[in-house]
Protein backbone atom coordinates (compact mmCIF):
# COMPACT_ATOMS: atom_id res chain seq x y z
CA UNK A 1 0.00 0.00 0.00
CA UNK A 2 1.31 3.43 -0.94
CA UNK A 3 0.74 6.01 1.77
CA UNK A 4 -1.20 9.20 0.95
CA UNK A 5 1.03 11.90 -0.55
CA UNK A 6 0.72 15.67 -0.48
CA UNK A 7 1.47 17.63 -3.64
CA UNK A 8 1.60 21.25 -4.62
CA UNK A 9 0.00 21.73 -8.04
CA UNK A 10 0.26 24.92 -10.01
CA UNK A 11 -1.60 25.86 -13.21
CA UNK A 12 -0.52 28.79 -15.34
CA UNK A 13 -0.39 30.36 -18.78
CA UNK A 14 -4.19 30.22 -18.95
CA UNK A 15 -4.52 26.55 -17.84
CA UNK A 16 -5.83 27.87 -14.50
CA UNK A 17 -9.01 28.93 -16.32
CA UNK A 18 -10.01 25.27 -16.44
CA UNK A 19 -9.61 25.09 -12.63
CA UNK A 20 -11.93 27.87 -11.60
CA UNK A 21 -9.23 30.49 -12.19
CA UNK A 22 -7.18 29.23 -9.24
CA UNK A 23 -3.45 28.81 -9.88
CA UNK A 24 -2.18 27.18 -6.70
CA UNK A 25 -3.60 24.00 -5.21
CA UNK A 26 -2.46 21.91 -2.25
CA UNK A 27 -3.80 18.41 -2.73
CA UNK A 28 -3.50 15.08 -0.93
CA UNK A 29 -3.68 11.94 -3.00
CA UNK A 30 -5.30 9.08 -1.07
CA UNK A 31 -3.52 5.91 -0.20
CA UNK A 32 -3.84 3.25 -2.91
CA UNK A 33 -2.39 -0.13 -3.79
CA UNK A 34 -0.11 1.09 -6.62
CA UNK A 35 2.33 3.99 -6.36
CA UNK A 36 1.17 7.35 -7.66
CA UNK A 37 2.76 8.19 -11.00
CA UNK A 38 2.04 11.08 -13.38
CA UNK A 39 -0.35 8.98 -15.43
CA UNK A 40 -2.50 8.26 -12.38
CA UNK A 41 -2.22 11.86 -11.23
CA UNK A 42 -3.72 13.05 -14.54
CA UNK A 43 -6.65 10.66 -14.13
CA UNK A 44 -7.14 11.93 -10.59
CA UNK A 45 -6.98 15.61 -11.68
CA UNK A 46 -9.53 14.96 -14.37
CA UNK A 47 -11.90 13.25 -11.96
CA UNK A 48 -11.43 15.56 -8.98
CA UNK A 49 -10.25 18.98 -10.07
CA UNK A 50 -11.17 19.90 -13.64
CA UNK A 51 -14.07 22.30 -13.58
CA UNK A 52 -14.77 22.50 -17.32
CA UNK A 53 -13.83 21.28 -20.79
CA UNK A 54 -11.52 18.42 -19.71
CA UNK A 55 -10.50 17.84 -23.35
CA UNK A 56 -8.60 21.14 -23.21
CA UNK A 57 -6.34 19.65 -20.53
CA UNK A 58 -6.05 15.93 -21.10
CA UNK A 59 -6.02 14.07 -24.38
CA UNK A 60 -5.89 10.31 -24.33
CA UNK A 61 -3.67 9.33 -21.39
CA UNK A 62 -1.54 12.44 -21.36
CA UNK A 63 -1.75 16.24 -21.26
CA UNK A 64 -2.92 17.98 -24.36
CA UNK A 65 -0.04 18.93 -26.68
CA UNK A 66 0.97 22.53 -25.93
CA UNK A 67 0.77 22.18 -22.15
CA UNK A 68 4.20 22.16 -20.53
CA UNK A 69 4.77 20.11 -17.39
CA UNK A 70 7.46 20.76 -14.79
CA UNK A 71 8.17 18.43 -11.89
CA UNK A 72 10.09 20.14 -9.09
CA UNK A 73 11.00 22.83 -11.61
CA UNK A 74 12.41 20.42 -14.21
CA UNK A 75 10.90 19.66 -17.61
CA UNK A 76 8.97 16.40 -17.24
CA UNK A 77 10.50 15.21 -20.53
CA UNK A 78 13.65 14.63 -18.48
CA UNK A 79 11.79 12.84 -15.69
CA UNK A 80 10.09 10.00 -17.49
CA UNK A 81 6.87 11.93 -18.22
CA UNK A 82 3.87 9.71 -17.40
CA UNK A 83 5.97 7.08 -15.65
CA UNK A 84 7.49 9.49 -13.09
CA UNK A 85 6.71 8.19 -9.60
CA UNK A 86 5.44 11.02 -7.43
CA UNK A 87 6.98 11.66 -4.01
CA UNK A 88 5.44 13.36 -1.01
CA UNK A 89 5.79 17.18 -1.26
CA UNK A 90 6.50 17.18 -5.00
CA UNK A 91 5.74 20.36 -6.89
CA UNK A 92 4.04 19.88 -10.28
CA UNK A 93 3.45 22.82 -12.63
CA UNK A 94 1.28 22.83 -15.75
CA UNK A 95 1.71 25.79 -18.11
CA UNK A 96 -0.48 26.23 -21.14
CA UNK A 97 1.19 27.62 -24.24
CA UNK A 98 -2.07 27.57 -26.16
CA UNK A 99 -3.16 30.99 -24.99
CA UNK A 100 -2.17 34.27 -26.58
CA UNK A 101 1.13 35.95 -25.93
Amino acid at each position, binding site marked *: MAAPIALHLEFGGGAELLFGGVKDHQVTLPSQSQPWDMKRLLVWIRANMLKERPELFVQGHTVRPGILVLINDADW*ELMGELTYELQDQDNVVFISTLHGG
Partner: protein
Amino acid sequence: MPIICSSCEQKRAMLKRPKTGHSLCKECFFSAFEEEVHQTIVSARLFNSGETVGIGASGGKDSTVLAHVMKVLNQRYDYGLNLLLLSVDEGITGYRDDSLETVKRNQQQYDLPLKIVSYEELYGWTMDAIVKQVGLKNNCTFCGVFRRQALDRGALMLKVDKICTGHNADDIAETVLMNVLRGDIARLRRCTAISTASEGEGVVPRCKPLKYAYEKEIVLYAYFKKLDYFSTECIYSPNAYRGYARAFLKDLEAVRPSAIIDVIHSGENLSVREGVRMPVQGNCTRCGYISSQALCKSCVLLEGLNRGLPRLGIGKHNRLRGKILAQEPLTQEEERKLKAVDF
Protein backbone atom coordinates in the same frame (compact mmCIF):
# COMPACT_ATOMS: atom_id res chain seq x y z
CA MET B 1 18.91 9.64 -11.39
CA PRO B 2 19.03 13.30 -12.42
CA ILE B 3 20.21 13.95 -15.97
CA ILE B 4 23.32 16.11 -16.21
CA CYS B 5 23.50 19.18 -18.48
CA SER B 6 25.00 18.21 -21.84
CA SER B 7 26.70 21.58 -22.18
CA CYS B 8 28.53 22.25 -18.88
CA GLU B 9 28.41 18.56 -17.81
CA GLN B 10 28.15 19.70 -14.19
CA LYS B 11 24.74 20.93 -13.18
CA ARG B 12 21.47 19.11 -13.29
CA ALA B 13 19.58 19.46 -16.61
CA MET B 14 16.26 21.25 -16.20
CA LEU B 15 14.81 21.10 -19.68
CA LYS B 16 14.96 19.31 -22.97
CA ARG B 17 15.24 21.75 -25.88
CA PRO B 18 12.60 21.10 -28.54
CA LYS B 19 14.91 22.40 -31.27
CA THR B 20 18.00 20.32 -30.59
CA GLY B 21 16.90 17.66 -28.13
CA HIS B 22 19.74 18.78 -25.81
CA SER B 23 19.25 18.55 -22.05
CA LEU B 24 20.45 21.75 -20.41
CA CYS B 25 20.71 23.31 -16.97
CA LYS B 26 19.07 26.68 -16.39
CA GLU B 27 22.23 28.73 -16.86
CA CYS B 28 23.28 26.96 -20.07
CA PHE B 29 19.72 27.28 -21.40
CA PHE B 30 19.63 31.03 -20.71
CA SER B 31 22.89 31.58 -22.54
CA ALA B 32 21.93 29.29 -25.48
CA PHE B 33 18.58 31.06 -25.86
CA GLU B 34 20.07 34.54 -25.67
CA GLU B 35 22.94 33.63 -28.02
CA GLU B 36 20.51 32.34 -30.64
CA VAL B 37 18.47 35.53 -30.55
CA HIS B 38 21.72 37.48 -30.84
CA GLN B 39 22.75 35.37 -33.86
CA THR B 40 19.36 35.99 -35.46
CA ILE B 41 19.74 39.75 -34.92
CA VAL B 42 23.29 39.82 -36.26
CA SER B 43 22.89 37.53 -39.26
CA ALA B 44 19.71 39.23 -40.48
CA ARG B 45 21.18 42.67 -39.64
CA LEU B 46 17.96 43.67 -37.90
CA PHE B 47 19.30 46.86 -36.29
CA ASN B 48 21.87 49.59 -36.77
CA SER B 49 23.73 51.37 -34.01
CA GLY B 50 22.04 54.59 -32.94
CA GLU B 51 18.52 53.52 -33.88
CA THR B 52 15.50 54.03 -31.67
CA VAL B 53 13.65 50.72 -31.44
CA GLY B 54 10.11 50.36 -30.13
CA ILE B 55 9.34 46.99 -28.57
CA GLY B 56 5.69 46.12 -29.13
CA ALA B 57 4.69 45.23 -25.55
CA SER B 58 1.40 43.58 -24.66
CA GLY B 59 2.29 42.30 -21.21
CA GLY B 60 2.14 38.73 -22.55
CA LYS B 61 4.97 36.18 -22.39
CA ASP B 62 6.42 36.77 -25.85
CA SER B 63 6.79 40.52 -25.65
CA THR B 64 7.95 40.33 -22.03
CA VAL B 65 10.71 37.89 -22.98
CA LEU B 66 11.55 40.03 -26.02
CA ALA B 67 11.87 43.18 -23.91
CA HIS B 68 14.04 41.38 -21.39
CA VAL B 69 16.33 39.78 -23.98
CA MET B 70 16.63 42.98 -26.04
CA LYS B 71 17.66 44.88 -22.93
CA VAL B 72 20.24 42.21 -22.02
CA LEU B 73 21.71 41.90 -25.53
CA ASN B 74 21.79 45.64 -26.15
CA GLN B 75 24.03 45.96 -23.10
CA ARG B 76 26.04 42.78 -23.55
CA TYR B 77 26.90 43.36 -27.20
CA ASP B 78 26.75 47.10 -27.23
CA TYR B 79 24.17 47.35 -30.03
CA GLY B 80 23.90 51.07 -29.33
CA LEU B 81 20.09 50.97 -29.53
CA ASN B 82 17.75 53.31 -27.80
CA LEU B 83 15.01 50.93 -26.61
CA LEU B 84 11.50 51.78 -25.53
CA LEU B 85 8.23 49.95 -24.91
CA LEU B 86 5.25 50.63 -27.13
CA SER B 87 1.81 49.43 -26.06
CA VAL B 88 -1.66 49.63 -27.48
CA ASP B 89 -4.66 50.11 -25.22
CA GLU B 90 -7.60 48.61 -27.07
CA GLY B 91 -9.98 49.69 -24.31
CA ILE B 92 -11.07 46.29 -23.03
CA THR B 93 -12.09 46.46 -19.39
CA GLY B 94 -10.78 43.61 -17.26
CA TYR B 95 -8.33 42.45 -19.91
CA ARG B 96 -6.20 45.15 -21.39
CA ASP B 97 -6.24 47.33 -18.31
CA ASP B 98 -4.79 44.39 -16.34
CA SER B 99 -2.19 43.53 -18.96
CA LEU B 100 -1.18 47.19 -19.18
CA GLU B 101 -0.48 47.10 -15.46
CA THR B 102 2.01 44.33 -16.28
CA VAL B 103 3.60 46.48 -18.99
CA LYS B 104 3.89 49.35 -16.50
CA ARG B 105 5.71 47.06 -14.07
CA ASN B 106 7.97 45.89 -16.93
CA GLN B 107 8.77 49.55 -17.62
CA GLN B 108 10.06 49.82 -14.04
CA GLN B 109 11.78 46.42 -14.03
CA TYR B 110 13.63 47.01 -17.30
CA ASP B 111 13.99 50.74 -16.87
CA LEU B 112 12.70 51.49 -20.38
CA PRO B 113 10.46 54.40 -21.41
CA LEU B 114 6.85 53.40 -22.18
CA LYS B 115 4.34 54.89 -24.59
CA ILE B 116 0.73 53.73 -24.60
CA VAL B 117 -1.51 54.64 -27.54
CA SER B 118 -5.21 54.00 -27.12
CA TYR B 119 -7.92 53.18 -29.64
CA GLU B 120 -9.99 55.79 -27.92
CA GLU B 121 -7.54 58.61 -28.65
CA LEU B 122 -6.72 57.38 -32.17
CA TYR B 123 -10.14 56.34 -33.39
CA GLY B 124 -12.62 57.71 -30.87
CA TRP B 125 -13.81 54.16 -30.10
CA THR B 126 -12.79 51.68 -27.39
CA MET B 127 -13.15 47.94 -28.12
CA ASP B 128 -15.79 47.83 -25.38
CA ALA B 129 -17.84 50.41 -27.33
CA ILE B 130 -17.19 48.64 -30.65
CA VAL B 131 -18.38 45.31 -29.25
CA LYS B 132 -21.56 47.02 -28.04
CA GLN B 133 -22.23 48.03 -31.60
CA VAL B 134 -20.95 45.09 -33.66
CA GLY B 135 -21.44 42.17 -31.29
CA LEU B 136 -19.01 39.36 -30.68
CA LYS B 137 -18.79 38.00 -34.17
CA ASN B 138 -16.59 40.38 -36.12
CA ASN B 139 -14.98 42.32 -33.31
CA CYS B 140 -11.57 40.69 -33.87
CA THR B 141 -11.48 42.14 -37.39
CA PHE B 142 -11.77 45.64 -35.96
CA CYS B 143 -9.25 44.96 -33.24
CA GLY B 144 -6.62 43.47 -35.57
CA VAL B 145 -6.87 46.18 -38.22
CA PHE B 146 -6.82 48.97 -35.65
CA ARG B 147 -3.90 47.49 -33.71
CA ARG B 148 -1.57 47.32 -36.67
CA GLN B 149 -2.09 50.98 -37.43
CA ALA B 150 -2.00 51.97 -33.77
CA LEU B 151 1.52 50.60 -33.32
CA ASP B 152 2.68 52.56 -36.36
CA ARG B 153 1.06 55.75 -35.16
CA GLY B 154 2.58 55.34 -31.71
CA ALA B 155 5.96 54.70 -33.31
CA LEU B 156 5.69 57.85 -35.42
CA MET B 157 4.76 59.96 -32.39
CA LEU B 158 7.95 58.76 -30.70
CA LYS B 159 10.11 59.00 -33.85
CA VAL B 160 10.92 55.32 -33.60
CA ASP B 161 13.09 53.91 -36.42
CA LYS B 162 11.94 50.31 -36.07
CA ILE B 163 9.35 48.27 -34.25
CA CYS B 164 10.17 44.79 -33.05
CA THR B 165 7.46 42.36 -32.07
CA GLY B 166 7.44 39.15 -30.04
CA HIS B 167 6.27 36.80 -32.81
CA ASN B 168 7.86 33.41 -32.24
CA ALA B 169 8.36 30.36 -34.47
CA ASP B 170 5.05 28.82 -33.41
CA ASP B 171 3.15 32.05 -34.20
CA ILE B 172 4.74 32.28 -37.63
CA ALA B 173 3.97 28.64 -38.45
CA GLU B 174 0.34 29.25 -37.44
CA THR B 175 0.16 32.31 -39.66
CA VAL B 176 1.63 30.40 -42.62
CA LEU B 177 -1.01 27.73 -42.15
CA MET B 178 -3.84 30.23 -41.82
CA ASN B 179 -2.76 32.10 -44.95
CA VAL B 180 -2.59 28.83 -46.88
CA LEU B 181 -6.07 27.90 -45.70
CA ARG B 182 -7.40 31.31 -46.68
CA GLY B 183 -5.54 31.42 -49.99
CA ASP B 184 -4.04 34.77 -49.05
CA ILE B 185 -0.95 34.70 -51.24
CA ALA B 186 0.16 38.28 -50.53
CA ARG B 187 0.17 37.75 -46.76
CA LEU B 188 1.69 34.29 -47.16
CA ARG B 189 4.71 35.85 -48.84
CA ARG B 190 5.08 38.53 -46.21
CA CYS B 191 4.41 36.57 -43.04
CA THR B 192 7.63 34.56 -42.94
CA ALA B 193 9.87 37.59 -43.51
CA ILE B 194 12.00 38.33 -40.47
CA SER B 195 11.87 42.04 -41.23
CA THR B 196 9.87 44.33 -43.45
CA ALA B 197 11.20 47.58 -44.82
CA SER B 198 8.92 50.58 -44.57
CA GLU B 199 6.13 49.89 -47.02
CA GLY B 200 5.32 53.55 -47.37
CA GLU B 201 4.60 56.73 -45.53
CA GLY B 202 3.35 56.20 -41.99
CA VAL B 203 4.53 52.60 -41.87
CA VAL B 204 7.48 51.87 -39.61
CA PRO B 205 9.81 48.95 -40.52
CA ARG B 206 9.17 45.89 -38.37
CA CYS B 207 11.18 42.88 -37.33
CA LYS B 208 10.81 39.67 -35.33
CA PRO B 209 13.93 38.83 -33.31
CA LEU B 210 12.20 35.74 -31.82
CA LYS B 211 11.32 34.31 -35.24
CA TYR B 212 13.27 31.11 -34.60
CA ALA B 213 12.49 30.81 -30.90
CA TYR B 214 10.10 28.06 -29.90
CA GLU B 215 7.16 28.79 -27.69
CA LYS B 216 8.20 26.17 -25.17
CA GLU B 217 11.56 27.88 -24.71
CA ILE B 218 9.98 31.31 -24.42
CA VAL B 219 7.59 30.07 -21.74
CA LEU B 220 10.37 28.29 -19.84
CA TYR B 221 12.70 31.27 -20.16
CA ALA B 222 10.01 33.48 -18.63
CA TYR B 223 9.24 30.87 -15.97
CA PHE B 224 12.83 30.18 -14.91
CA LYS B 225 13.72 33.90 -14.96
CA LYS B 226 10.51 34.61 -13.02
CA LEU B 227 9.58 37.32 -15.50
CA ASP B 228 6.38 39.15 -14.75
CA TYR B 229 3.85 38.49 -17.51
CA PHE B 230 0.13 38.34 -18.03
CA SER B 231 -1.63 35.34 -19.47
CA THR B 232 -5.34 35.57 -19.82
CA GLU B 233 -7.28 35.13 -22.98
CA CYS B 234 -8.81 38.28 -24.38
CA ILE B 235 -12.36 38.34 -23.06
CA TYR B 236 -13.76 39.10 -26.52
CA SER B 237 -11.66 36.81 -28.63
CA PRO B 238 -11.55 33.09 -28.47
CA ASN B 239 -9.83 33.76 -31.89
CA ALA B 240 -11.21 30.45 -33.02
CA TYR B 241 -9.40 30.19 -36.33
CA ARG B 242 -5.93 30.72 -34.91
CA GLY B 243 -6.83 28.47 -31.98
CA TYR B 244 -7.54 25.56 -34.34
CA ALA B 245 -4.34 26.20 -36.33
CA ARG B 246 -2.38 26.28 -33.07
CA ALA B 247 -3.88 23.07 -31.69
CA PHE B 248 -3.34 21.34 -35.04
CA LEU B 249 0.33 22.33 -35.12
CA LYS B 250 0.81 21.21 -31.53
CA ASP B 251 -0.67 17.82 -32.42
CA LEU B 252 1.68 17.60 -35.43
CA GLU B 253 4.63 18.59 -33.27
CA ALA B 254 3.84 15.80 -30.81
CA VAL B 255 4.31 13.33 -33.67
CA ARG B 256 7.12 15.13 -35.49
CA PRO B 257 9.11 17.63 -33.39
CA SER B 258 10.37 19.57 -36.42
CA ALA B 259 6.82 20.36 -37.61
CA ILE B 260 6.98 24.04 -36.63
CA ILE B 261 10.20 24.83 -38.44
CA ASP B 262 9.13 22.66 -41.40
CA VAL B 263 5.97 24.73 -41.87
CA ILE B 264 7.98 27.96 -41.69
CA HIS B 265 10.39 26.62 -44.32
CA SER B 266 7.47 25.65 -46.53
CA GLY B 267 6.16 29.21 -46.29
CA GLU B 268 9.58 30.66 -47.06
CA ASN B 269 10.11 28.43 -50.08
CA LEU B 270 6.79 28.93 -51.79
CA SER B 271 7.33 30.88 -54.96
CA VAL B 272 4.58 32.69 -56.75
CA ARG B 273 4.18 31.97 -60.44
CA GLU B 274 4.89 34.91 -62.67
CA GLY B 275 1.76 36.62 -63.80
CA VAL B 276 -0.09 36.09 -60.52
CA ARG B 277 -1.66 39.43 -59.75
CA MET B 278 -0.61 40.76 -56.37
CA PRO B 279 -2.42 43.69 -54.79
CA VAL B 280 -0.71 46.97 -55.60
CA GLN B 281 0.10 48.95 -52.47
CA GLY B 282 -0.84 52.60 -52.47
CA ASN B 283 -1.98 54.99 -49.81
CA CYS B 284 -5.33 55.61 -48.23
CA THR B 285 -6.83 58.79 -49.65
CA ARG B 286 -8.27 59.71 -46.27
CA CYS B 287 -5.58 58.97 -43.66
CA GLY B 288 -2.52 58.29 -45.84
CA TYR B 289 -1.84 54.86 -44.36
CA ILE B 290 -0.66 52.11 -46.70
CA SER B 291 -3.55 50.48 -48.55
CA SER B 292 -4.28 48.55 -51.72
CA GLN B 293 -7.65 50.33 -51.96
CA ALA B 294 -8.58 54.00 -52.13
CA LEU B 295 -9.77 53.77 -48.52
CA CYS B 296 -7.78 51.69 -46.07
CA LYS B 297 -9.51 48.97 -44.11
CA SER B 298 -9.27 50.93 -40.91
CA CYS B 299 -10.98 54.00 -42.43
CA VAL B 300 -13.76 51.84 -43.90
CA LEU B 301 -14.37 50.15 -40.54
CA LEU B 302 -14.35 53.50 -38.78
CA GLU B 303 -16.77 55.01 -41.29
CA GLY B 304 -19.08 52.05 -40.68
CA LEU B 305 -18.93 52.53 -36.92
CA ASN B 306 -19.49 56.26 -37.10
CA ARG B 307 -22.48 55.92 -39.43
CA GLY B 308 -24.05 53.10 -37.46
CA LEU B 309 -23.38 50.66 -40.33
CA PRO B 310 -20.90 48.31 -38.64
CA ARG B 311 -20.87 45.70 -41.41
CA LEU B 312 -19.42 48.14 -43.90
CA GLY B 313 -15.83 46.94 -43.63
CA ILE B 314 -16.68 43.29 -43.21
CA GLY B 315 -16.97 41.04 -46.22
CA LYS B 316 -17.26 42.25 -49.75
CA HIS B 317 -18.73 45.69 -49.98
CA ASN B 318 -16.23 47.15 -52.41
CA ARG B 319 -18.87 48.80 -54.53
CA LEU B 320 -20.18 50.62 -51.49
CA ARG B 321 -16.74 51.92 -50.60
CA GLY B 322 -16.80 53.93 -53.81
CA LYS B 323 -20.11 55.46 -52.86
CA ILE B 324 -18.81 56.40 -49.46
CA LEU B 325 -15.69 57.98 -50.91
CA ALA B 326 -17.85 60.03 -53.22
CA GLN B 327 -20.12 60.77 -50.22
CA GLU B 328 -23.14 59.52 -52.13
CA PRO B 329 -26.14 58.47 -50.04
CA LEU B 330 -26.85 54.75 -49.68
CA THR B 331 -30.17 53.22 -50.66
CA GLN B 332 -32.44 51.91 -47.91
CA GLU B 333 -31.69 48.35 -49.00
CA GLU B 334 -27.95 48.95 -48.70
CA GLU B 335 -28.36 50.52 -45.27
CA ARG B 336 -30.45 47.59 -44.11
CA LYS B 337 -27.78 45.08 -45.13
CA LEU B 338 -25.02 46.93 -43.38
CA LYS B 339 -26.95 47.37 -40.16
CA ALA B 340 -27.80 43.72 -39.71
CA VAL B 341 -25.69 42.38 -36.89
CA ASP B 342 -25.58 38.67 -36.34
CA PHE B 343 -24.65 37.91 -32.78
